[in-house]
């Protein structure tokens, strides 16, 4: 009797979980692509973990807190690793609507991925779109920062070049007028040459021209 019941239950379960059955989802794992050498083999223990994660996701849905691991059925496990799963309700005769399962999986996708060390691309739930990560926009985009740096440097360089140009021009302007100034001053100043003022040279009349050395001074005294 017990065996008959067992076979009946298995048969019903087999009908509920079939490829392309109603409310069934196909899952595909790419373990070797994700983990390379550290890939684990897919065995019944991993299947148990998967059922546990699905049950965990369903328990978070209101009205479905009583979902057990035995309510998650897996079938058609291939070498790819891919399989189909359904979630049946406690009465064990019909499957839960796909929409509920879909939203539950989406909400807990991250936890499920982490349980298997996979990500959205290597643990695929066909027909359940994953929510993409929001773009990581820093508050100030990097390009503005670098632009600010470059632009400030350029503006400073331009200012320095203009200022140095102005200074050069001012210095050039001062030199010819400076030369003129000294010429003017010469006429007012007494030019000293050899320690003797030039003025005596201009004077007319019989004055001793002190610009000339006297005879006595020409020869050094013994």
């Amino acid at each position, binding site marked *: 009797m017990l065996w008959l019941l067992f076979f009946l239950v298995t048969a019903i379960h087999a009908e509920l979980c079939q490829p392309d059955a109603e409310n069934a989802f196909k899952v*595909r794992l*790419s*373990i*070797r*692509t994700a983990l390379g050498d550290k890939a684990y083999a897919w065995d019944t223990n991993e299947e148990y973990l998967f059922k546990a994660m699905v049950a965990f996701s369903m328990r978070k849905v209101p009205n479905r807190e009583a979902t057990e691991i035995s309510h998650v059925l897996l079938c058609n496990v*291939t*070498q*790819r*690793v*891919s399989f189909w799963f359904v979630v049946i309700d406690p009465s064990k005769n019909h499957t839960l609507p796909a929409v509920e399962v879909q939203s539950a999986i989406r909400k807990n996708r991250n936890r499920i991925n982490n349980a298997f060390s996979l990500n959205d691309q290597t643990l695929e739930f066909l027909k359940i*779109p*994953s*929510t*993409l*990560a*929001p*773009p990581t926009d820093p508050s100030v985009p*990097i*390009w503005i920062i*670098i*632009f600010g740096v*470059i*632009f400030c440097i*350029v*503006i400073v*360089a*331009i200012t320095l*070049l*203009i200022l140095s*140009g*102005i200074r050069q*021009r001012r210095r050039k302007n001062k030199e010819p007028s400076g030369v003129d100034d000294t010429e003017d001053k010469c006429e007012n100043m007494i030019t000293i040459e050899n320690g003797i003022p030039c003025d005596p040279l201009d004077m007319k009349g019989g004055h001793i021209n002190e610009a000339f050395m006297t005879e006595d001074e020409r020869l050094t005294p013994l």
Partner: protein
Amino acid sequence: MAHAPEPDPASGDLGDERPKWDNKAQYLLSCIGFAVGLGNIWRFPYLCQTYGGGAFLVPYVIALVFEGIPLFHVELAIGQRLRKGSIGVWTAISPYFSGLGLGCVMLSFLVSLYYNTILAWVLWYFLNSFQHPLPWSSCPPDLNRTGFVEECQGSSAVSYFWYRQTLNITADINDSGSIQWRLLICLAACWAVVYMCVIRGIETTGKAIYFTASFPYLVLTIFLIRGLTLPGATKGLIYLFTPSMQILQNPRVWLDAATQIFFSLSLAFGGHIAFASYNSPRNDCRKDAVVIALVNSMTSLYASIAVFSILGFKATNSYEHCLDRNILSLINEFDFPEQSISRDDYPAVLMHLTTTQPRRVARLPLKACHLEDFLDKSASGPGLAFIVFTEAVLHMPGAPGWAVLFFGMLFTLGLSSMFGNMEAIITPLLDKGVLPRWVPKEALTGLVCLACFLSATCFTLQSGNYWLEIFDNFAAPLNLLIFAFLEVVGVVYVYGMKRFCDDIAWMTGRRPGPYWRLTWRVVSPLLLLTIFVAYVTLLARKPLSYRAWNPQYELFPSRQEKLYPGWVRAACMLLSLLPVLWVPMAALAQLLTWRKRTWRDRHVRPDTDTHNLP
């Protein structure tokens, strides 16, 4: 007509000293920097690949020898001899030719507008390269984050970044859209950098050119070494350089080789004349011309090796991804274990499955993967830099670093060409004395840069890229060909071949040999005329159309072919004719002035014979 005033060696220097190059290296680097530009990177490799690889070098070298070097020598010689910018030089040769100088200035102005806009795009990409992952590596998610943005999904992340996040392009040239502030501030920064470098003329460009002319060579070498060590590089190089000689029978090859040499050396802009005018008069300009032209061509070749090793890597990468996608489809459909089909086994497995389960295989989206198809996906112009190369860089380890290097190289390449363009505008204006003497040079350069920046803001509109293509296709080529033809004819026939040869003998110590005389007198003018006629014929035959980026197009991501509306065609016509119109207008003005003078003289002194030759 050859009665131009005798230019003495010290003409124009009696007032104040003409600025001089600090040393010969600055002058050579400036000319090389002006000649070597973005076209060496993104036009020459494309032409090489399209026109039969190594076979393209044959028409290229012939054009270089018979057209490029002789014209280049003419420009350097007259600039060095007459020691003025383009307006002064052509006015000195003949007052009727002064329009040529004015046209060159106007053309340099138009070209610098759009050339610096390209540099603004390069700067934008450069600024965005300082992050990991690169912003063009993945599509942004859409609003409810279930998938990627549709436009990006349909094309590719790289195209989306270029057309939407950089240009924010409209689907039609009539729809101008709004000014993109990101591009506007990049453009402002570019013009500020240009101003900083040309602020005191060659005094500042001479210092800046040491960096901007040599940095690209350093980066090209790094890319060459890295590129050659990437897988698939040799395939790219073999594909590029495998000669197919029968393509030489196509006249388009010869036309494109001649135009490529011509535009690559940046002839007829007036920039080389301006640079040469700052030389000491006794300088061997013949050797300079040959050296600079050869360096320019060598650089093109060097760059194409680097570019094609990277593109070979990219093609191999795409080919392997194509194979991997097909293999994954097969594995997923038939539930084979992961990684059970290698790339080499794929054809055999596919054939086996097609024979055993044809219906299931037919349902799969399998693409035909051929390496040649990916190698054929070449591009020229901005498409090469901003779409193809950016995608190639994504697959290289350490992508942000390579992107920074690449866009830094493009920026310095373009910047050194901009120096030549700006000197072509500023030197003639300075020589002409448009502003009073007390206005400093910094103010003149500042005004020119400001005027250019304000005019170029139209390229930061959403339809700016379409306008830039118009400028690139219509403003420059025809005018340059006409100006170059007039240059050669003006120097050889108006100035006089004998006088020109005497001048060169005085400057370099040797008279030009028969090769030079023959090319100047016959070969180059004839070549230029042929190229001009062929160019105009080709242009007239092609309907004036452009390719628009339209996400609503059925064949998206292919670009939609649209005809230019009437007002745009008028603008094209204006752009092509405006610089050239200066030549007849100035000649006419000169003729009227001469007639007025002779009439006045005849009426003041009616008895004397007025044998005034024009």
